[in-house]
């Protein structure tokens, strides 16, 4: 029982984290029609910034806030110098150019921070276990991730659906020429959206950092998961990304936790321990394949122009 609740919460936490990453990816794709592979690099940079600033200031929260600002600025700089010129180009061009950016970022990190990973230690008040149900404790930090991510998701929803800027963003997604003709500075809008996406990726990276180590290439595996999520959820749809992220987070975590035992009851010990790790990491890809067979446009396709 304890294990089930714990793994369930772990799945939720991982799913929400994936959502932060996928939200930026799907925003940028839905609005600018840009495939950004370097999104995972921004996730990595967020983690490195947080580890560095936290060490400088001696405060985890202050470091995280500074890192958030830094990734936002980095995203804006990236958009203005490089990615802006890719709008309207073929998707293949996006893939290649941002692939080049990944190489660049990985190498830049190696140059600045060295090849060894960094650690981002948690402050004491975040390491205590919190009782959530009678007799069941859960780490405070993971709980904090769940709360922060849910809050960000809510803010994002309200921001996109209820504010003037959000309205402009949605308008820009459906018809960029028209909104430009109506006197809106579409270039600035795009830059802002990209910065926002970068900050979300950075946030995901720095929140994951204390759980895993901060290392080069940390954004690459998780980026693929984010892609799977936006494919399942329907590209450009934030709601789809949210649901798909929770779904993928749950399946991945629960699969890894319970599949080996489940298999052991069907197969003999040796076969089960060989098949389980491979099968549990395949699970989400199988899920994606099934979704694409049934609904090639994803589960919640955004209404596109």
């Amino acid at each position, binding site marked *: 029982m304890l294990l089930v609740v714990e793994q369930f919460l772990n799945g939720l936490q991982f799913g929400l984290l994936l959502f932060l990453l996928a939200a930026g990816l799907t925003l940028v*794709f839905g609005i600018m029609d840009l*495939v950004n592979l370097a999104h995972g690099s921004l996730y990595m940079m967020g983690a490195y910034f947080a580890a560095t600033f936290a060490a400088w200031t001696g405060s985890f929260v202050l470091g995280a806030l500074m890192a958030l600002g830094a990734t936002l600025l980095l995203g804006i700089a990236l958009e203005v110098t*490089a990615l802006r*010129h*890719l709008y309207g*180009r073929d*998707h*293949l*061009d996006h*893939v*290649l*150019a941002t*692939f*080049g*950016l*990944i*190489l*660049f*970022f*990985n*190498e*830049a990190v*190696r*140059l600045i921070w060295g090849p060894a990973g960094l650690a981002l230690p948690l402050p004491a008040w975040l390491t205590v276990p919190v009782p959530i149900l009678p007799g069941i404790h859960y780490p405070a930090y993971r709980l904090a991730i769940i709360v922060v991510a849910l809050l960000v998701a809510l803010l994002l929803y309200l921001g996109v659906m209820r504010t003037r800027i959000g309205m402009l963003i949605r308008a820009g997604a459906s018809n960029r020429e028209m909104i430009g003709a109506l006197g809106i500075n579409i270039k600035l809008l795009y830059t802002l959206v990209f910065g926002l996406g970068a900050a979300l990726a950075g946030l995901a990276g720095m929140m994951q950092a204390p759980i895993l180590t901060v290392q080069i290439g940390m954004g*690459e595996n998780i980026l*693929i998961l984010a*892609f*799977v999520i*936006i*494919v399942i959820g329907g*590209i450009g749809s934030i709601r789809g990304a949210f649901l798909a992220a929770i779904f993928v987070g749950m399946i991945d975590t629960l699969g890894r936790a319970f599949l080996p035992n489940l298999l052991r009851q069907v197969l003999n010990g040796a076969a089960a*321990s*060989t*098949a389980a*790790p*491979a*099968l549990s*990491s*395949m699970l989400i*890809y*199988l899920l*994606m*394949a099934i979704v*694409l*067979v049934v609904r*090639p*446009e*994803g589960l919640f396709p955004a209404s596109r122009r």
Partner: protein
Amino acid sequence: MKGLNVSKAVTALMLAGLVLLPLYSSLSGNIFILTLFTRIVILALAAASLNLIMGYGGMMSFGHAAYLGIGGYAVGILAQEGVGSGFVQFPVALAASALFALVIGALSLRTRGVYFIMITLAFAQMAYYVASGLARYGGDDGLTVYKRSDFSGLINLSDRVQFYYLCLAGLLGVIFLIWRVVNSRFGLVVQGLRSNEQRLQAIGFPAKRYQLVCFVIAGTMCGLAGALLANNTDFVSPAVMYWTRSGDLMVMVILGGMGTLFGPVMGAVVYLLLEEFLSQITEYWALIMGPLLLLIVLFGRGGIMGLLGRLNRG
């Protein structure tokens, strides 16, 4: 004929260079260059096969490196299990790649555009994780191939020069096949599907079936590259399937010129030599390579072949 055709001349020069390379290597005693070029030729084969679906078929597969792994693991696993004959290993490598291409192609081709890019990427990652989970065959650490494929006296793969020529023959054979495919009725339909799928479907061509066959052909060819690569490095690991490897292959194709017969070969030669050259100047070669790729995408339309073509027209 108005003057010399620059791109044809450069292609001929490059091919002559590739054919004569072992001679240079043995005269100068530079063994390293032969090892390097064996790798280049094998990856050029992989890039050429990717070009068939990407350049001619318009199918932007971002998971092509999966076949490198599948071909490689077919050789590695069979060798481990005591089947050393290349007459078994190579056909199995090709068949396994073809089967994988058939399954993921049938699923992926239901989607288009950026969905296709991502789903092929995800399937390749899936293959990567499966290979990492193969505890019996080395898992994450990879599998050492202690003995190269044995072609019972016909050709000795442990001999550097013979192996190089085998790879080169493979490359030229694949390019010849691609040339035949592209200019056949089948190839024309596939290329037509790239420009206007709806119209061809309206005439009555079963679009997906044509694309799937093309996808399988390309995957099988790349499986050959995988089997050769495993022999070349005497080692196969999940890393050859990692998605950045697929990215490398795509870069080679674009760099050389998509949809040109020899473009991918040119791209592979230039990309890998550049990588080699930059890594000799600085440990941080990717710091230069990354932005270089960005610039190539932004300004280098049509790749090297496109550039040569423009030179030709003046």
